[in-house]
């Protein structure tokens, strides 16, 4: 349903005394471009006043319509169409206020006309003293005053209800309305009885819990007090029972009697113990006497036996020895003769040995002598060879190296070649005859031909000179020859020789000398071999040192050399003889040793027997000298009798002492005493305890603790049950409230969808790809771009303003679709938009104007003048 404003006339309104007329408004886009102070905002005010402000009101708002300082009646006249039906509204305020509405069904006036307008345009009667946009319904939202669109805000309750009711068909649900609100209020009130606003335990629930806790604590305390008293009772009963037992024990005479009996037996026991000690000592003494005497008699008997045995042994040893002595004597004689034979044999051998030694000394001296002589001879030869060797080495050393030799020979060849070349081209002069005054270059001419190789002055005497100039080639050949000769001469002089053939001779001599050196070395080595007989080592030096060390005495040779072999044969014979005699002597010695060995135990036995005999005799003598010996038999008998008697007496005493141990008895007495003492102490303590407990019971027992405890327990249980009931009640209310709230949110949410869809259509163009989130009261809450959510209030002013316009447009669209009268008025909108956004918004508004009437009021000519649509001026 479109609403089209056509004409507005305001008279005596605000600053317009004269009628302000706006007419010719079209169905689509209308642009009113006027400078500031022209009355654009007043136009909107007049519209609102004409339609929404009750004509009869005298409130502050109505007063404000009056031109400042003038007492005239503001009037507004509005003509508009809704769905092709024409309406005319004329309203007059303050002075004789009036309203007249002319519509398709005729004319109404006054309050009826007000109600007709309300029904037609969907607004409510305002109770506010000022302008109350919320009460103006959809047009309150869609007619946007200057600055009203600067932030996104929720539509009013009327608009929301309107939206909801228009959407009912679409979302298929109904809000609870008044019934819901009343039920919800009642449930909220009940909730507040049990819970804090934050949902924590509070109110009655808390009181019940506290009461239950307090009652439980009191009951526990009472129970604990009662238990303490009961313990006192139990303790008292137990103490009294023990006291009874104790008193019976104390009154018991048995311990007293037992103690008296024990004291008596203690005396008896002490006497018996004394006697026993005495008898024991006596018994020990008698026994000791008897034992001593018995041992004395035993000793004498042993000594007599020993004497007899020793005597027999001595006789036996003597008899055996007599026989063995003869064997020893015989052996001694045989050994004597063998020893003498051995001695002779030793002398013979010594003589033979000595003779052989002497002979060997002589032989050795002779050998040494000849060796020394030989060494001397070889030494002399050595000296000769060494001299020869020195000479050969010198010659070898003077040899010319083969390299040098080659060089010499090459030079010599070159010289010969050069000479030949020279002589081929040279001038040869010869002087025949004697002419001493003729000189060549100042020298005598000499014999024989002369080869001229350079300018040569032949002095002819008398100052005359014949100059011979050889051919030019000769001169160079001569120079080369000279050079070669000079180099040859230089090399030869370095070698210390005069010509090349001499060099060849030296090389040949050196080669021979080298061969000779090897020969000489071999010969020297041959004559300087080692001679062990005279401790001479190998080598020339060793030989020279040996010869130098020879003294004169070494050179004397012995006169004769005896026959060594003969002497050795003699020694061998003597050795054989000695061995034989030594064997004989050894046998004799063995025989003697055996004889003496047979004799030795006999001697020992004899000595031992003699010693034992002497000892036994000594002992017998000592014993028999003892005075006890005289009456030994009778004395021993008496002592034994005495010991037996003492033993009997001791046993008797033991029996007397019997089990009467004084210490045991003392301990028993002590035990009885302690028991009695302990019983008395305990009785005192118990008496004290009993008195204390009785006093406690006396005090506490009269307080009625048991009844109090029973009561407190029941109270605690009752309080607990109450608390449980209250808790259950609280849970019930909480669940109910939660369920109601959830249902409310869910229901609200069903209305948000259609709004969001419509808003998104527009906003997408501004912010491509964004997602919108609306609150349940249909306010755009946030937008999400590229995954980031931004609250509307955080967006830039320009964007906020644009979103505010676009969401309004969404509401307008929806209301339009649902057949509500809709028109959009924007007073000085998009003040913060940049050019691009402004263009885009202009496009969107132009498109919207195809669906509904859009009126743009602006002072910005450049920004809006290009818009198509109806351009209107305020007249």
């Amino acid at each position: 349903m479109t609403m089209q404003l056509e004409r507005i006339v305001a008279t005596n309104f605000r600053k317009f005394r004269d009628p302000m007329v706006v007419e010719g408004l079209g169905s689509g886009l209308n642009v009113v471009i006027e400078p500031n102070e022209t009355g654009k905002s007043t136009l909107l005010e007049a519209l609102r006043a004409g339609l929404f402000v009750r004509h009869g009101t005298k409130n502050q708002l109505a007063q404000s319509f009056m031109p400042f300082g003038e007492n005239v009646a503001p009037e507004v006249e509005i003509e508009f169409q809704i769905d092709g039906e024409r309406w005319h509204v004329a309203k007059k305020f303050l002075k004789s206020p009036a309203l007249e509405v002319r519509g398709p069904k005729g004319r109404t006036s006054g309050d009826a006309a007000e109600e007709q307008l309300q029904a037609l345009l969907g607004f409510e009667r305002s109770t506010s003293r000022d302008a109350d946009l919320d009460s103006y319904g959809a047009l309150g939202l869609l007619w946007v005053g200057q600055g009203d669109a600067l932030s996104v805000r929720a539509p009013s309750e009327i608009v929301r209800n309107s939206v909801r009711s228009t959407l009912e068909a679409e979302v298929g649900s109904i809000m609870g309305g008044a019934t819901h609100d009343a039920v919800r209020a009642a449930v909220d009130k009940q909730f507040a009885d049990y819970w804090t606003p934050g949902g924590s335990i509070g109110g009655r629930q808390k009181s019940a819990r506290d009461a239950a806790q307090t009652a439980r604590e009191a009951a526990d305390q009472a129970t604990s007090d009662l238990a303490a008293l009961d313990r006192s009772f139990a303790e008292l009963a137990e103490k009294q029972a023990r006291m009874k037992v104790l008193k019976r024990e104390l009154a018991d005479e048995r311990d007293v009697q037992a103690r008296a009996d024990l004291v008596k037996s203690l005396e008896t026991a002490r006497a018996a113990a004394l006697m026993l000690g005495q008898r024991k000592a006596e018994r020990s003494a008698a026994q000791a006497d008897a034992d001593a005497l018995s041992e004395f008699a035993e000793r004498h008997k042993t000594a007599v036996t020993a004497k007899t045995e020793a005597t027999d042994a001595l006789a036996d040893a003597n008899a055996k020895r007599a026989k063995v002595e003869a064997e020893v004597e015989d052996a001694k004689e045989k050994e004597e003769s063998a020893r003498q034979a051995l001695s002779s044999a030793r002398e013979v051998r010594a003589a033979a040995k000595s003779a052989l030694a002497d002979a060997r000394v002589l032989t050795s001296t002779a050998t040494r002598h000849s060796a020394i002589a030989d060494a001397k001879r070889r030494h002399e030869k050595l000296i000769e060879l060494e001299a020869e060797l020195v000479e050969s080495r010198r010659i070898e050393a003077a040899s010319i190296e083969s390299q040098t030799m080659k060089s010499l020979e090459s030079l010599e060849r070159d010289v010969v070649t050069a000479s030949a070349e020279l002589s081929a081209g040279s001038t040869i002069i010869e002087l025949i005859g004697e002419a001493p005054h003729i000189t060549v270059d100042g020298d005598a001419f000499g014999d024989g031909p002369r080869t001229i190789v350079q300018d040569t002055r032949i002095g002819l005497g008398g100052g005359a000179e014949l100059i011979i100039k050889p051919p030019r080639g000769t001169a160079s050949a001569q120079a080369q020859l000279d050079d070669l000769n000079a180099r040859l001469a230089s090399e030869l002089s370095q070698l210390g020789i005069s010509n090349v053939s001499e060099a060849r001779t030296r090389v040949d001599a050196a080669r021979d000398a080298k061969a000779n050196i090897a020969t000489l070395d071999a010969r020297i080595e041959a004559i300087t071999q080692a001679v062990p007989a005279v401790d001479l080592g190998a080598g020339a030096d060793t030989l020279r040192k040996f010869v130098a060390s020879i003294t004169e005495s070494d050179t004397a040779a012995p006169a004769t050399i005896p026959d060594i072999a003969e002497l050795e044969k003699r020694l061998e014979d003597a050795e054989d003889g000695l061995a034989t005699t030594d064997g004989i002597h050894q046998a004799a010695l063995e025989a003697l040793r055996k004889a003496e060995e047979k004799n030795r135990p006999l001697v020992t036995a004899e000595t031992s027997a003699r010693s034992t005999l002497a000892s036994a005799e000594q002992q017998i003598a000592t014993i028999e000298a003892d005075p006890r010996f005289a009456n030994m038999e009778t004395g021993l008998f008496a002592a034994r009798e005495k010991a037996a008697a003492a033993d009997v007496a001791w046993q008797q005493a033991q029996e007397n002492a019997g089990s009467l141990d004084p210490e045991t008895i003392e301990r028993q007495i002590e035990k009885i005493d302690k028991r009695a003492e302990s019983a008395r102490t305990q009785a005192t303590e118990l008496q004290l305890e009993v008195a204390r407990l009785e006093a406690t019971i006396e005090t506490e027992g009269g307080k009625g603790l048991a009844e109090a405890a029973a009561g407190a327990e029941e109270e605690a249980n009752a309080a607990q049950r109450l608390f449980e009931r209250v808790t259950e009640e609280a849970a019930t209310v909480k669940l109910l409230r939660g369920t109601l709230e959830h249902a409310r949110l869910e229901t609200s949410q069903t209305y948000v969808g259609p709004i969001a869809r419509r808003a998104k259509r527009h906003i997408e163009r501004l912010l491509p790809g964004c997602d919108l989130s609306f609150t349940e009261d249909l306010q755009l809450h946030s937008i999400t771009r590229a995954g980031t959510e931004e609250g509307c209030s955080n967006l830039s002013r320009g964007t906020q303003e644009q979103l505010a316009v676009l969401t309004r447009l969404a509401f307008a669209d929806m209301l339009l679709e649902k057949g509500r009268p809709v028109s959009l008025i924007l007073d000085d909108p998009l003040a913060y938009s940049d050019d691009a956004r402004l263009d885009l918004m202009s496009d969107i508004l132009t498109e919207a104007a195809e669906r509904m009437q859009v009126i743009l009021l602006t002072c910005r000519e450049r920004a809006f003048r290009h818009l198509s649509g109806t351009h209107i001026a305020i007249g």
Partner: protein
Amino acid sequence: MFRFIHTADWQLGKPFAWAEPEVRSALTDARFDAIDTIGQMASEHSVTHIFVAGDVFDTEGPDPRTIVQALSRMERHPCKWWLLPGNHDFVRAGGLWDRIEARLPGNVSLIPEAQPCELDDGVWLLPAPLVHRHQNDDPTESFDTMETPGAILRIGLAHGSIVDFGAQGETKNQIAPDRATRSGLDYLALGDWHGLLQVNSRTWYSGTPEVDRFQRDEPGKALLVELEQGGEPIVTEFRTGKYQWLKRDWRVDDFAGFEAERAQLLDECDPATTLVRMTLTGITTLTDRVAMLSALEDDLAHRFRYFSYSATDLVAKPSNDDLAAFSAEGILGAAASTLNTRVQEDGPESLIARRALERLFVEHAKVIGS
């Protein structure tokens, strides 16, 4: 002929703290008043001796006020009160009885020991006071050997359960059921069982004079006993109890059934002196359940001296009508539907959800009603 009153289990000082304070004091006072009732009954029937068979006091440590009330009430009646210690107020050194002995009025006799006592020419009382809270042997065993020279009548006085009660869970202080025959008693006055009970012709429990728990519907009684040598005892019961304690378990599936039960209950008692503890079970509609509960809470509960009920097992299934009433309510309908779904689920939440649904129903009804 020898005539006496047999009573027991006064349980003076019982706290009743589960009840609200005014009920509590009414019940407490009623127990003291029972003493006066018995005293008057003695006067009316010219009875000299009143035997209290144990549990005079509810605890071994009663409040001083309880003691004073008890003694002063007894003092003002011209009869002889014989008090036997029971398991609740057993004898012990320095205990309750030692303390009040010195304060006993002349007409009140305490029986602290199991000693026979000649009341009249040839009339012997054989008591069995309890010296422990729980005693494993039969406390009346000693009656067999008690010397009662020249006895014309032998009256036993004891506190404990008859062996047969074992099945009901009371096992201590057991008394042989044939004690009267065994010990040659003309009458055995017993305490401990709170209801009136005849064990055999010579053995009786008088029960408590004022009921103290929801166990039996009968009000408290005391027994007037007449004995003649060789004859059977003549036992007459008298109501002494002021209050009736009723326990009711109603199975109600609709409001009409509830109404019928309600009418019957009101018809059979005096609500002003009646205490009621009620359990409702059944399956009903939400509407009926709400109606029943409001009838209980807004009317019935106020008629009785004390009234408590549990409706946990009265299950309300919201009918299609119930839910239909909500379906037009948008949010409320959605909430009711959510809750109803949760009611169907098992678990502890189910019960809470049921209550919440019921509450929603009630609140909705209130709003609609207004």
